């Protein structure tokens, strides 16, 4: 069973499980929406300032949402010990990890895209003309978030206070993603939109480094 096929089966299982309850997706979307709205009460969204603050608000909402919705990937496997069932199976641990990273990427991206039109309206920013580039930047950033986040969720699943521990572990580590994502998005939302490739390269570099690190450490995550 090849790595990618096994990962695909895990991904399908995650999607199917989520489809039954849809609780993770809906709660994440509501949360991101709440954070965006709350931010606009904190920083008065007049036209000029909103343009300057909006990329930061967007990425912060995604980061917070991510650090809260990643825990279930592993805590859900603790009910009925299904995590043991996954460890018993003759698949590479990285396949399971990759499947879960994929599922988290899918759910978070879905939540992001549901939010973007709302964001565009609330902050009066024109997203349509930069949609392609924005999609690329969001994807690279969310991928980095999900790779590191899923690994850290696996680690914190064994710890006490895991709901609080995951954000504590994750947020400092995602600083490069936050900075690069915000700066790249800010460039795209200017009057003359521009895509700063430096930031795209940093996001891509982050993704590559941590995908490799995940691959190398996946077997240790599955241990008892």
């Amino acid at each position, binding site marked *: 069973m090849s790595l990618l096929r096994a990962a695909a089966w895990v991904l399908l299982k995650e999607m199917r499980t989520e489809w039954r309850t849809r609780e993770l997706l809906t709660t994440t979307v509501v949360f991101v929406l709440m954070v965006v709205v709350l931010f606009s009460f904190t920083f008065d969204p007049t036209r000029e300032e909103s343009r300057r603050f909006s990329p930061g608000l967007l990425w912060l909402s995604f980061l917070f949402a991510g650090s809260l919705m990643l825990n279930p990937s592993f805590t859900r496997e603790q009910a009925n010990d299904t995590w043991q069932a996954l460890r018993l199976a003759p698949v590479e641990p990285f396949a399971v990890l990759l499947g879960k990273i994929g599922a988290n990427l899918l759910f978070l991206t879905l939540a992001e895209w549901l939010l973007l039109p709302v964001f565009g309206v609330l902050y009066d920013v024109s997203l349509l003309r930069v949609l392609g580039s924005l999609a690329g930047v969001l994807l690279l950033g969310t991928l980095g978030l999900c790779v*590191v986040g899923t*690994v*850290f969720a696996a*680690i*914190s699943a*064994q*710890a*006490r*206070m*895991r709901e609080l*521990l995951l954000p*504590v*572990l994750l*947020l*400092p*580590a995602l*600083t*490069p993603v936050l*900075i*690069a994502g915000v*700066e790249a998005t800010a460039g795209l939302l200017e009057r003359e939109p521009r895509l700063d490739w*430096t930031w795209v390269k*940093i996001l891509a*570099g*982050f993704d590559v*480094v*941590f995908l490799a*690190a995940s691959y190398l*450490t996946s077997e*240790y*995550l599955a*241990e*008892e």
Partner: protein
Amino acid sequence: MRSPFLLPVAGLALVGAAAYAIFFVAPEEATMGAIQRIFYFHIASGWTAGVAFLLAFAANIAYLAGRAPKWDWLGVASVEVGLAFCTVVLITGPIWAKPVWGIWWTWDARLTSTLVLWLLYVSYLALRSLVEDPRRRAVACAVFGVFAFLDVPLVYFSIRIWRTQHPQPVIAGGEGSGLDPVMWQVTVLTMAALMGVMALLVWQRYRLEALRQQTAELALP
């Protein structure tokens, strides 16, 4: 059996020698005056913290490779000591910035990176305190430690590029500023002294962790 005073005395001697050099040998800096002398501790602590974290990274990898507990002990010892030196950097930075720039925090690239790194390694300690089983704890910390260290260059570069786009006052004269040769010597001396202190502290902390673990294993079958 070596005297328990040997190591602390050695440490004090090293720091004493560095302090003497800093206050009495190094010339006074032209524009900033006496406050500039804190630069030596600031820079040296930064490098020492970096070496400590590098040591932790090596220990983490060694642990994952062989599962020998001693690497886990070395890992936590290096992180704690590295964090202590990181704290020195974060305290000396504002102490310098206030008289020179008039504000406590200048969002200088190096200082900001150090802050993020400080947070990252503090969370290593948080993780450590929250996993109970020693084996799992060691593996969890080793994996997290590897990720944290790989993040260091990414954090550093992203913050640096970010700050060059939004320039702010720089602490400690920036990268390419020239140094008087005597100042350079004092800097190197201070670095050597602090690295020596770091080694002593790591050694002590390592032994402490070893004793803790061994005692825990003796208690109750």
